[in-house]
């Protein structure tokens, strides 16, 4: 007894006349027919299972991604909690507590190694009861350190040797996961007896920083809403596509049921039952994929972001929503798809007669979406009332509307194509006859591309709101690295400069000691201390001997020079200010020699101009200068690959507290970086998912045509002809989809920029996405070739 027999014996014999009437409604009928559909999906033999499995895998990919998205709040929140828990309580105020048995000194010891950030802290216990940071048993003794497992692994490799020179401590233990952001984090705590309050350290008594909640910048908030919509709408479209895998063969099976008396509503419900089974299977598989996949999270680091598997936990309400909404959506999608197909007892009408798609209703969704966004309030960084629902609804309507437009556009485009070689003709004719499944497969990539184009346009335009220029700027020349020593007793400028010059990869180095002095009326100017050779590089000096001082003016800067003169009055005393971590320290008064001439500054070797007081060491009192800092600028040899890390190592050897900053043209706001990282991670996952969906869809189509492919091969069709046909069949919808994505993305981007009142920086942002689309087409075609080869085997001709 076949499945058909079982189905018919249950429905067709004793109760067939009544079933038609029952089939018109009622929950009982619904359950029966859904159950029959589930039986078809579950007991349809190898072919049936293959189709169900394809749907299941497609839905599973989408569900897994949704579960990752639902876990994101938890990932961010536990990372943030662990990050705050290990910060000393006074990390932001830098105001020291009083010394006690349970206090400790800390100093940030972060550094960078090649492209990785290495977080760290130098610690010095004041007494035996000084607490250790989370994940660490005790504060390491001087000369010792505890490290994260990832850092230990790096230091053990030859590649980490240069870093090992910099972190020249004995490893005595590992930091437990409770003290780390993720398994791949590079982090250490080192014990040091060289840190002191004078050297910039801060005294604290416990860990755990409680940040005050700061509302997210309104523009950023808007971006985050946009990113969520842009990432999740394609997932939804992808799932909707997956539940229609195998639709053609299913329709033929349903036609057979119509022949034995099933009415249209019954077959629709049976089809829904089949989709329901596939989607529930997909939810289960997706859950399993998520659970298995998150185990790999600890090994994966994308753009500096990783997570412990235990952190990747979806919020319960969201997980429940996914588990319920996906199967429900699959039923809705199937029922709506069935409306466009007329399953008749002798076959599926769609196959015999083409019905042209209509345009007008497909324009409604994007038009409504654009209208919502056009009539929304303008958003500025300080806006308090950004309505996420409006923005999300408007954006989602436009993106979903674009997905609806694509089948019409593909159909309209291919309808005009004629001629060409055989592979082209085969592909175009196939698309002319049925472009729906191809368009559906491409709609995911199209929507993702359109969304990414919008985000890139917004990022480009809003970048100015999130960047702060670094360096002196304006001189056209700036050091590749800047070093700043907090230790006012430590290295002298000369020692630092000599050390840097001997470092491999350093082309030039310039160091000097700087401080601030205040005049009697509270005006402030700079004081630069260096020998005559150095001072000559900073200003045009008439003559110079140790013990000389100068008042330096910037040429053409009358206002700035007047301000310098208010403080630097030859023969009058100035005060050397020291606003250390414990507030103003005892000040040091010093008289600017009366014979100090006014000189004009020149750009120093690193491009800066130093106006204010220039002094040789002999002119100042012996000993450390209150509030002084030693700074150095370094130019590196562009051919030296490890110059930056060599310099960091030199600096750490001279003074572990030296802060090294590498020049970047722009220093991005951290929030901006975080959002952009989120987009990159999400976009990558999305692209992988889309490629997978296109491949699954392609293989499904090939399966449907197995026999035809075998026949074509039988009468001598070259395999390359069919492979080219597959390529064109994928490429044409992707090309049309990319055009639509570019047009839709630029239009939506224009509206969004109007909302945030920013001009577009670059209208060509869609080009990379067109490139990605091209690569995806090639990738999908290449991966389709092995199954295509298999399905062209003569076994497809066998009927017995």
């Amino acid at each position, binding site marked *: 007894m076949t499945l058909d027999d079982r189905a018919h014996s249950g429905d067709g014999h004793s109760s067939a006349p009544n079933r038609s009437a029952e089939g018109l409604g009622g929950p009982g009928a619904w359950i029966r027919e859904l159950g029959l559909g589930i039986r078809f999906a579950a007991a349809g033999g190898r072919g049936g299972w293959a189709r169900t499995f394809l749907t299941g895998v497609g839905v599973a990919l989408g569900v897994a991604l949704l579960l990752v998205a639902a876990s994101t709040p938890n990932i961010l929140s536990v990372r943030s909690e662990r990050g705050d828990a290990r910060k000393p309580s006074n990390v932001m105020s830098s105001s020291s507590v009083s010394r006690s048995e349970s206090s400790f000194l800390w100093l940030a010891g972060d550094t960078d190694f090649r492209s990785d950030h290495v977080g760290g802290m130098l610690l010095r216990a004041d007494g035996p009861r000084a607490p250790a940071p989370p994940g660490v048993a005790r504060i390491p003794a001087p000369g010792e350190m505890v490290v994260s497992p990832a850092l230990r692994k790096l230091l053990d490799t030859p590649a980490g040797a240069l870093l090992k020179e910099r972190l020249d401590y004995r490893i005595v233990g590992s930091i437990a996961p409770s003290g780390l952001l993720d398994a791949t984090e590079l982090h250490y705590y080192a014990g040091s007896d060289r840190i002191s309050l004078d050297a910039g350290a801060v005294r604290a008594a416990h860990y755990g920083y409680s940040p005050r909640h700061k509302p997210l910048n309104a523009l950023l908030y808007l971006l985050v809403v946009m990113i969520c919509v842009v990432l999740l709408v394609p997932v939804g479209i992808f799932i909707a596509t997956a539940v229609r895998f195998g639709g053609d063969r299913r329709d033929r099976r349903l036609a057979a049921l119509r022949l034995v008396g099933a009415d249209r509503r019954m077959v629709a419900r049976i089809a829904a039952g089949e989709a329901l089974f596939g989607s529930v299977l997909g939810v289960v598989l997706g859950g399993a994929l998520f659970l298995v996949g998150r185990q790999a999270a600890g090994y994966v680091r994308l753009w500096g972001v990783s997570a412990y598997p235990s952190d990747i936990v979806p919020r319960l309400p969201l997980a429940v929503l996914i588990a319920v909404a996906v199967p429900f959506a699959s039923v809705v999608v199937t029922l709506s798809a069935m409306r466009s197909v007329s399953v008749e007892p002798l076959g599926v009408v769609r*196959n*015999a*007669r083409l019905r042209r798609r209509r345009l007008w209703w497909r324009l409604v969704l994007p038009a409504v979406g654009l209208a919502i966004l056009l009539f929304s309030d303008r958003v500025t960084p300080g806006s308090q009332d950004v309505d996420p629902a409006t923005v999300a609804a408007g954006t989602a309507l436009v993106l979903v509307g674009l997905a609806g437009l694509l089948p019409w556009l593909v159909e309209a485009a291919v309808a005009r194509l004629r*001629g060409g070689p*055989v592979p082209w*003709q*085969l592909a175009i*004719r*196939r698309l*002319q*006859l*049925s472009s729906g499944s191809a368009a559906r497969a491409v709609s995911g990539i199209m929507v993702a591309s359109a969304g990414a184009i919008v985000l890139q346009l917004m990022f480009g335009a809003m970048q100015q709101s999130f960047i702060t220029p670094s360096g002196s700027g304006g001189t056209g020349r700036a050091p590749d690295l800047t070093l700043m020593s907090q230790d006012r007793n430590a290295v002298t400028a000369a020692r630092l400069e000599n050390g840097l010059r001997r470092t491999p990869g350093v082309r030039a180095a310039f160091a000097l000691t700087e401080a601030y002095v205040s005049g009697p009326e509270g005006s402030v100017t700079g004081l630069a201390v260096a020998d005559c050779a150095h001072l000559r590089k900073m200003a045009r000096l008439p003559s110079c001997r140790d013990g000389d001082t100068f008042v330096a003016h910037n040429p053409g800067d009358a206002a700035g020079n007047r301000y310098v003169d208010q403080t630097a009055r030859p023969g009058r005393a100035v005060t050397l200010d020291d606003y250390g971590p414990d507030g103003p320290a005892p000040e040091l008064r010093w008289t600017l020699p009366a014979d100090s001439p006014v000189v004009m500054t020149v750009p120093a070797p690193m491009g800066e101009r130093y106006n204010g007081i220039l002094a040789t060491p002999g002119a100042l009192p012996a000993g450390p200068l209150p509030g002084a800092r030693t700074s150095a600028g370094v130019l590196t040899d562009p051919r030296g690959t490890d110059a930056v890390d060599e310099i960091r190592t030199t600096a750490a050897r001279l003074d572990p507290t030296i802060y090294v900053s590498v020049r970047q043209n722009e220093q991005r706001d951290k929030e901006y970086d975080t959002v952009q990282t989120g987009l990159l991670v999400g976009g990558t996952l999305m692209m992988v998912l889309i490629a997978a969906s296109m491949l699954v869809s392609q293989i499904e189509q090939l399966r449907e045509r197995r*026999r*035809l492919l075998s*026949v*074509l*091969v*039988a*009468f*001598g*069709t*070259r395999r390359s*002809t069919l492979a080219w046909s597959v390529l064109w069949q994928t490429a044409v919808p992707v090309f049309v989809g990319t055009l639509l994505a570019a047009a839709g993305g630029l239009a939506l981007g224009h509206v969004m920029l109007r909302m945030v009142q920013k001009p577009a920086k670059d209208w060509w942002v869609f080009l990379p996405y067109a490139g990605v689309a091209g690569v995806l087409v090639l990738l999908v075609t290449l991966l389709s070739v092995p199954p295509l080869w298999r399905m062209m085997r*003569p076994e497809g*001709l*066998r*009927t*017995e």
Partner: protein
Amino acid sequence: MTPAGSLLVAHDLRKAYGPTNALDGAGFNIHPGEVVAVMGPSGSGKSTLLHCLAGIVTPDSGSIMYGGQEMATMNDAQRSALRRSQFGFVFQFGQLVPELTCVENVALPLRLNGASRKDAERTALARMEQLEVDDLRAKRPGEVSGGQGQRVAVARALVTDPRVLFADEPTGALDSLNGERVMELLTDAARSANAAVVLVTHEARVAAYSDREIVVRDGKSRDMERVV
């Protein structure tokens, strides 16, 4: 040894699919212009014999000579070229490309051989006229009846003027009236083109259109005396 004048000869063919021996020492020969029916019950190996003779499937052992050349020495590309230029095929169903119109389907083998579209469709139309389906030129396979579709398939099989036409249950999906019409047209067209026809069927009335019958049973073949 090749029987005198034979176009296609096979000896001692063996082919197994897993544990099942589809062919177990089968033999075959056919002369130019001859129509040979291969008969046998379902699962006897007759379709496998046809696939081996046409170079679609490689036998596990045995010899197939076409025009004096051993097919086992040909690679896949050579066998494909042979099928494109020398052989024609008609199957029971599922053989027309549903996206192409009927004339495009018929012209397809010519286009695969490098003919221009215009020339290929002109030749295709002439064949379609011969098979009385030229009025279907602009229709797609989904829009024509089973009998009409099968006649289009015959036109396609003959459009390259093949020396051998392989027909695997060509009337299996047709009613008797349509089946007979297709067989009449197929054999008439083949004979007028002096093409040999290998006709796989299990129906005696279809086999009646042949000059000679071969019965395949349990993978073995033997010639049948025609009982009139």
